[in-house]
């Protein structure tokens, strides 16, 4: 399988990368891990005039941790996320998602920015990040803007990123107090598999064993982009976690998702599994929150 011909640029700095993207726009594609892009180019689905390699630019590879925020550079690899002790401690659901992605060989190449930029509705990284209310930083020669990941995805393969922009980092504000999140992906196999459905849930409590003061439930593979279960979230807020409450929320989430029948599973099955995974991820989230 041959790759189509292209020019390869390897900018040394962020500024250089931004000016190349400004010049080429739609004719160029950024490449970091390349696990998605090169496979699509070999399948002749894409044939950009230029590839711009950004995986060696130091500022894109940083993991910056402070008391209040975690900043992950867009070229930080998925295996590095899976192995990071701080990510495991502060935002464990992201580490769970990272460990579920592809295979060890893929995870060593694949990057967080690539997983977001490729915008697959079944991707393993976005649900947890949306559940943590993460933001993406998009830069261009004319400036930078920050987009909430919840508003970032526009459809399969489409995002908020403009042709002259680069996704440079992901920012997660560490929530105050007692919070937790769970992520579960369901597939036929444990590795190298496309998810049938995946769910990430986040809750924060006003005190250990207290009432829920914020909740986010993110459902994957059941719409053109990841969907929020808004009504399910609303019934959680102001209530104490309980078996009955979570079953109720899971039922509502089931009614909020819009899966299609495909060769992976029927829509009916996917809906039922959204219910099961919503309940289970809420259980994980509350357990983690009460331990904080």
């Amino acid at each position, binding site marked *: *399988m041959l790759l189509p011909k*292209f020019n390869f640029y*390897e900018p040394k700095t962020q500024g250089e990368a931004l000016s190349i993207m400004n010049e080429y726009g739609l004719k160029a594609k950024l490449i970091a891990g390349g696990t998605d892009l090169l496979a699509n180019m070999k399948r002749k689905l894409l044939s950009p005039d230029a*590839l711009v390699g950004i*995986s060696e630019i130091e500022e894109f590879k940083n993991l910056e941790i402070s008391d209040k925020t975690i900043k992950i550079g867009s070229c930080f690899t998925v295996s590095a996320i899976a192995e990071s002790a701080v990510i495991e401690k502060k935002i464990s659901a992201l580490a769970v998602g990272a460990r579920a992605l592809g*295979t*060890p*060989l893929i995870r*060593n190449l694949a990057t967080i920015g690539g997983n977001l930029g490729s915008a697959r509705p079944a991707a393993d990284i976005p649900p947890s990040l949306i559940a943590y209310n993460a933001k993406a930083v998009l830069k261009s020669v004319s400036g930078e803007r920050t987009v909430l990941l919840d508003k970032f995805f526009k459809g399969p393969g489409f995002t908020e990123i403009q042709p002259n922009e680069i996704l440079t980092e992901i920012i997660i504000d560490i929530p105050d107090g007692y919070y937790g999140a769970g992520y579960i992906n369901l597939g036929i196999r444990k590795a*190298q598999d496309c998810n049938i459905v995946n769910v990430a849930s986040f809750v924060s409590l006003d005190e250990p064993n207290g009432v829920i003061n914020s909740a986010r439930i993110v459902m994957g593979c059941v719409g053109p982009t990841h969907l929020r279960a808004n009504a399910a979230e609303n019934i959680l807020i102001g209530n104490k976690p309980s078996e009955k409450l979570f079953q109720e929320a899971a039922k509502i989430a089931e009614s909020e998702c819009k899966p299609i029948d495909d060769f992976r599973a029927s829509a009916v099955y996917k809906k039922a599994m959204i219910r099961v995974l919503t309940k289970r991820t809420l259980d994980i989230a509350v357990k983690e929150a009460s331990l904080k």
Partner: protein
Amino acid sequence: MKQIINLTINDKKYEVAVDANLTLLDLLRYQLGLTGAKKGCELGDCGACAVIMDGKPVNSCLVLAVQANGKNITTIEGVEDENGLHPLQKAFVEKGAIQCGFCTSGMILSGKTLLDKKPNPTETEIKSAISGNLCRCTGYQKIIEAVQSVSCEG
């Protein structure tokens, strides 16, 4: 237009001129004659093309040769030393973990990376470490036993 890249493969330094659309796998196999890394699916599914790049096993079919500039690569050809085969290579032979042999180099490189990091892995850890390497002969049990046998000796 060809680009000049410098990389280290099995402790030997190379300077080669490559096309931008050449993969690391094709560079190894067709320009450098290192055919230990196999060409399977070419899409990152099978792991037959695995090589160790800067200490981590990766699918060389999904790395551009130009992206391997400055990297340190180990292929299956670089696993044995002056004393002969690596203990894991010997174990694969002794335990019958090689059938057709097409997945073997990738399996050994994934297994070796795990053993270098964790000399006594659990069965689950072994299974997870080789989860990106497919064996179409389905000889997984013997492969897992081969990795286990080295960890017990170690």
